[in-house]
């Protein structure tokens, strides 16, 4: 019955990003393969391979070795290490590619960014292993 305040720790390529981030969504999805047969009363499915995506948003920091430089350099590259801990203690780690990166500049607003990452294994070789929960 624990209620946990969000206290995100998030690193990507060993760069700590939670000092820029204000929101994160961690999405696990599992494809469901339909196996419904004529004799079934209800729709019926089997679970496929899980996927794990991370969407983050925060304030833009263009300094060297901060979020912008780190994420921009990873675009189109191999998976890099991530470690995400929703409560700052327990979470998931592995390797992820960057799927999108968006910089938002609006008058009278702080510069913001969003980024999406997709887990692809536990090594840069995209081995397809599950994230480590630690």
């Amino acid at each position: 019955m624990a209620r946990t305040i969000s206290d995100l720790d998030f690193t990507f390529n060993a760069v700590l990003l939670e000092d820029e981030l204000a929101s994160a969504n961690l999405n696990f999805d599992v494809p469901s393969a339909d196996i419904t047969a004529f004799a079934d009363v209800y729709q019926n499915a089997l679970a496929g391979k899980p996927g794990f995506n991370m969407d983050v948003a925060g304030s833009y920091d263009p300094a060297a070795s901060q979020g912008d430089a780190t994420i921009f350099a990873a675009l189109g590259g191999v998976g890099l290490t991530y470690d995400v801990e929703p409560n700052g203690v327990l979470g998931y780690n592995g390797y992820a590619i960057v799927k999108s990166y968006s910089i938002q500049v609006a008058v009278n607003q702080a510069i913001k960014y969003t980024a999406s990452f997709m887990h692809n294994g536990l090594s840069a070789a995209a081995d397809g292993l599950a994230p480590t929960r630690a």
Partner: protein
Amino acid sequence: MARIMSNPALFSYNAVQIEDELNSIVQTIDVPAADITAFADVYQNAVAGKKSVRTEIGGSADLAASQGWKTLFAGIGAGPKSTVLDPVGTGPGANAPEYQCTASGLTGVLVAAMKISLPVGDAARYTATLQHSGLTSRAVA
């Protein structure tokens, strides 16, 4: 841990500075995730594809010569042009990157869409979508 106001942001299209008309700039880089999930994989698996950069801008319409609307309008169906986005407004520098797409051959920025809104009793405004072709670099010097 910087938090930076957007007020001094700079944006140019085909060497024309149009930040004096704009109030919104969103530059998005999408990377296709090519599915490589195999039977032996435990989780869904992907590798990164080729990057695509798109910039969406919006602001007040300045229809004068050599200003935003006319410059962008001239870019419709034309060849790729150069753009520079400087969110911090002091770039290029170590802590102030410029995102540059420089016209050369097939590289540059294409006008993908333009829209002008003319509500009665209100300012004329426009939005434009710019599709980058080829390299967009992050310049810090």
